[in-house]
């Protein structure tokens, strides 16, 4: 079987070319007469769609290969090579990346189409699609990269696009600040990634720094180094995938256009961290402690975000925190070494979260850019398609069987229970209930009850087809994706897990039927309790609550942003100011200016000796002479 192919490279390149073309078109025309939006729209969708087709080809090519040797590689050229370090611009498609490829290109394409409707009328229409294409290209590089360094290219590229798209409405300072925050927080994570790569290279990179060589050599890694590498890489993952302590950028990232939130900050980019941990499963699997840490960080993030999510009043913020929370689940999954479960949750989450965001986008679009759920209400009559699709998404998110989210989440919780991580399991179930609660709180407040803002309600209308069609496609995905990995207890074969198996280093836990039933039962119970609580409270319409006590604390997100601002941002700025105002002029430059001043003053003082009286000059001579002759008499003796 030929493993070297030449078409892998085209998958990321096509959107990148699209980005370049769109960008140049936009830059060239935006100050003069803008080009028609349709031209942009068509150009923008070509790349992603072609990539999707190629992704399918990759998938089927892999499927045609024997299971143990399912991979495709392409080494385009030697990127850089210094001494032992040999990095080629190479791409690797194995089952793991092919799965990612499929849903990234599919959802990417759908969101491109949706955006044509959503962004219409924006004066930076072209720029938006250029960025979106650039993002997709970078994401595909991330997925396909055959070495950590190439992966890092995509990793940083998606970070850049995230920044550009968050600050897309750049006239508003807050949006740009949100973009800055995202980029900077991501960079903190990237530092971990780079350092992790560094340690990894000096440990085992000399024999080849691509994933396959690393995997082959991973066994010689010393435990300490392996732990360091794992934790550093995980720091990178916390940045990109918004985990404690670096999750703070993601809710702010909702400042970008809603399709961006759907694509980047829900479906694809933020899951890169999970993908990366799964990619490095060959190391993580050897270091249980690292996995433990990952799992706990993940599940605590899930809990924290769920608490925040229960008290948000911005529809996108609710979804943002639910994203953080779901990402936490994924990390809990990969942390307990259930890599395929984690990746499967990535996969299903991409569908239902993109769906929810796009639905929210349609609502926002209909409400003329109103995002506060307490200004909405009763919209289900006005926007039936949106309501139904969003309901499907919400059920999937809340973990209602048999929607996609139920299976993937259950898989994770089951793995946690089966591997003996009871704490994680308990918290996970708790979070599942909270998820159901806040999801349906949102659904009830937005779509049920009476309209709270009659005027806005009167103007609301269903979104155009270009937006609803992607919603429907995604809804189908959210409904059915779970069946792809149907566990044995429901009569399935776990196709996705089997498909992923060659790429991952994992051992499936064997547990009794009893454990499995407990896991499923607990999940379902949590879902029922959560949705019931939400219905009781909001089902018949409710007014905007005034928060007190813990609720107020949670409403303000435990003041974490303020804390970070006070502990990191302000001191940083103050140090900078202090250096500019005080340290630079007096401490570092001080000795220099002081020396110059002393020299000048000494020079001025020395003029005193040039008194101008000839007698004094003669006296100097005699004094000098006397001192010298004294010394002379000493040397004579």
């Amino acid at each position, binding site marked *: 079987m030929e493993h070297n192919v030449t078409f892998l490279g085209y998958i990321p390149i096509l959107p990148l070319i699209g980005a370049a073309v769109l960008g140049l078109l936009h830059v060239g025309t935006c100050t003069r007469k803008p080009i028609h939006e349709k031209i942009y729209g068509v150009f923008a969708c070509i790349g992603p769609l072609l990539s999707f087709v190629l992704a399918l080809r990759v998938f089927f090519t892999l499927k045609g290969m024997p299971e143990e040797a399912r991979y495709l590689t392409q080494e385009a050229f030697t990127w850089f090579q210094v001494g032992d370090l040999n990095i080629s611009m190479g791409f690797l498609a194995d089952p793991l990346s092919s799965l990612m490829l499929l849903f990234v290109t599919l959802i990417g394409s759908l969101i491109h189409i949706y955006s044509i409707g959503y962004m219409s009328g924006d004066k930076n229409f072209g720029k938006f699609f250029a960025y979106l294409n650039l993002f997709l290209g970078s994401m595909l590089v991330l997925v396909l990269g055959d070495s950590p360094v190439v992966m890092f290219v995509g990793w940083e590229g998606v970070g850049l696009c995230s920044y550009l798209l968050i600050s897309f409405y750049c006239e508003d300072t807050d949006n740009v600040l949100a973009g800055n925050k995202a980029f900077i927080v991501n960079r903190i994570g990237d530092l971990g990634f780079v350092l992790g790569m560094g340690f990894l290279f000096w440990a085992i990179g000399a024999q080849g720094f691509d994933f396959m060589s690393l995997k082959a050599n991973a066994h010689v890694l010393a435990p300490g180094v392996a732990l360091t590498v794992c934790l550093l890489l995980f720091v990178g993952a916390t940045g990109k995938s918004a985990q404690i302590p670096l999750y703070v950028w993601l809710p702010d990232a909702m400042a970008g256009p809603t399709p961006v939130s759907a694509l980047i900050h829900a479906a694809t980019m933020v899951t890169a961290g999970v993908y990366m941990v799964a990619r490095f499963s060959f190391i993580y699997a050897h270091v249980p402690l690292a996995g433990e840490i990952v799992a706990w960080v993940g599940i605590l993030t899930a809990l924290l975000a769920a608490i925040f999510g229960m008290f948000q009043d911005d529809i996108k913020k609710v979804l943002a925190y639910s994203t953080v929370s779901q990402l936490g689940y994924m990390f809990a999954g990969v942390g307990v070494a259930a890599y395929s479960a984690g990746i499967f949750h990535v996969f299903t989450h991409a569908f239902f979260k993109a769906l929810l965001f796009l639905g929210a986008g349609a609502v926002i679009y209909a409400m003329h850019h109103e995002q506060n759920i307490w200004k909405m209400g009763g919209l289900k009559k006005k926007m039936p398609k949106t309501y139904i699709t969003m309901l499907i998404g919400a059920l999937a998110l809340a973990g209602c069987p048999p929607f996609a989210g139920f299976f993937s989440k259950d898989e994770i919780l089951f793995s946690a229970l089966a591997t003996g991580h009871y704490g994680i399991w308990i918290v996970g179930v708790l979070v599942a209930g909270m998820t159901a609660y806040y999801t349906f709180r949102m659904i009830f407040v937005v779509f049920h009850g009476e309209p709270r803002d009659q005027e806005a309600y009167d103007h609301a209308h269903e979104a155009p087809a270009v937006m609803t069609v992607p919603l429907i496609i995604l809804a189908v995905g959210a409904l059915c994706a779970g069946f792809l990995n149907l566990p044995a207890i429901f009569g399935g074969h776990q196709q996705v897990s089997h498909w992923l198996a060659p790429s991952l280093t994992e051992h499936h836990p064997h547990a009794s039927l009893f454990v499995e039933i407990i896991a499923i039962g607990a999940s379902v119970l949590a879902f029922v309790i959560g949705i019931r609580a939400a219905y009781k409270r909001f089902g018949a319409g409710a007014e905007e609550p005034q928060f007190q006590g813990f609720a107020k604390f949670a409403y303000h997100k435990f003041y974490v942003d303020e804390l970070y601002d006070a502990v990191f941002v302000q001191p940083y700025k103050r140090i900078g100011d202090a250096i500019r105002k005080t340290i630079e002029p007096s401490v570092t430059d001080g000795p220099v200016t002081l020396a*110059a001043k002393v*020299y*000048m003053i*000494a*020079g*001025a*003082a*020395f*003029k005193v*000796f*040039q008194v*101008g009286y*000839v007698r*004094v*000059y*003669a006296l*100097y*001579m005699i*004094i*000098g*002479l006397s001192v*010298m*002759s004294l*010394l*002379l008499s000493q*040397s*004579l003796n």
Partner: protein
Amino acid sequence: MTNDFMLLMPLIITGVGAIALMLIAAYDKVTIEQASMASMGVFGLAFLVQLSNTIGTAVVPYDTVFNGMLVISNFTKVAGLIILACGFFTSMSAHSYFKQNNFCTTEFYSLVAFSACGMLLLTMSQELISVFISLEIMSLAIYILVGYDRQNKRAAEAVMKYLMLGAFAGAFLTMGTALVYGGVGSTKFALIGQAVAANGFFTNPALVCGAFFILVAFLFKVAAFPFHAWVIDVYDGAAAPVTGYMATGLKTAVFAVFANFLVVDETMRAGWVNYLFYLSILTMFVGNLIAIGQTSLKRMLAASGIVHTGYLLIALVAVSSEHFSGSVILYYLGAYSVGTLGIFAALSYLGGANEKRQTFDDFKGLARVRPYSAAAIAIFLLSMAGIPPTAGFMGKLYIITSAISAGQVALAVFGIISSILSMWYYLRLIINMYFHEAVEGFEDTADFKFAPACTFILVVCVFAISLYPIAV
């Protein structure tokens, strides 16, 4: 015989020229311009003859007649070349200088030539009394040149200070000579050297004291610390071309004889090395401190002259008696002379009537009005500061190299620190000339030929000398 005659020819030419100039001064018909040309002719001729003599070995001319008083070596020949060039360029810039300062008579050039005779003799002297005589020939002429402008109070004060302190130092030289004569029984360098080699140096107190007094006199003439105080006031009071002449020709001559005296015997030189070590450091730093506080250009240059004396003392510390060639000292003197003469030549025509432009601020914006003059001054200053690719840099390079080769690393370090310190006042003038708006038009400096030509030639010399390789 003819060879001896040819070797002494430059001395004879300048001497005869001096006398002839003195004589023709009696005739009213000879203008000062013509006298200046004549003086230039004399120096030029002497210079050419000296140049043609330059290659060869050490010779004792008219041994039987002069009894070995004079020795002509490559060292003295090159020193003579520098001195004659200084005389030539001084005459040349004086030509322009005296177009705006009306106190010149024909005797001025005669005195320049006379002092040159003294300097030439001084370089060749290998005997203490002839050192004394030639020093006085040189000094007396220079005293008069300093006070040439009898209407000028400053000049009068300058000559008073110079004469008084110069004679005071001269008295030390005489006393030193007497003591050395008492200790050795002869005043010839060669015999002194033999006596030291035979009996040692520090065993003979009279010799030590005498040598010490002679050293003091030399240090006074080159304005080393603590005998430096006069030099600022005297340079300030004298006319610009005279100051240039004093700063260069005189220093060359004295350093030549200083080196000749010092290398008569290694033990004697070694005895003074400690002194010279500290003196050179003190001289450099005191010179810098004085220079930094000055507002007048001439006073700054005088102070910088002290600093350069310090560098030359480094070279003296580092010379070796066995293979003494003095090339480093002469190279540095040549480089320094070119720069200093150049600046004073420029000052001769830029200073205006009665040298009205004296301070740094008076030259503000010169580059806007007279770009070439300003460029020339900048080049001279950079050369004195030791910035490549000028002669001053190569001079400094040779001095530091010889100092480190001789194991005097500390001295080299101090020399470098001193040149860092000296950057500031050199740059200050350049900054004033270039980076400030012109305060005046410098119209009165436009129509001169000789001094600007002199400046131009010296600019060429700055670069030409830097390309000339010497052996260390």
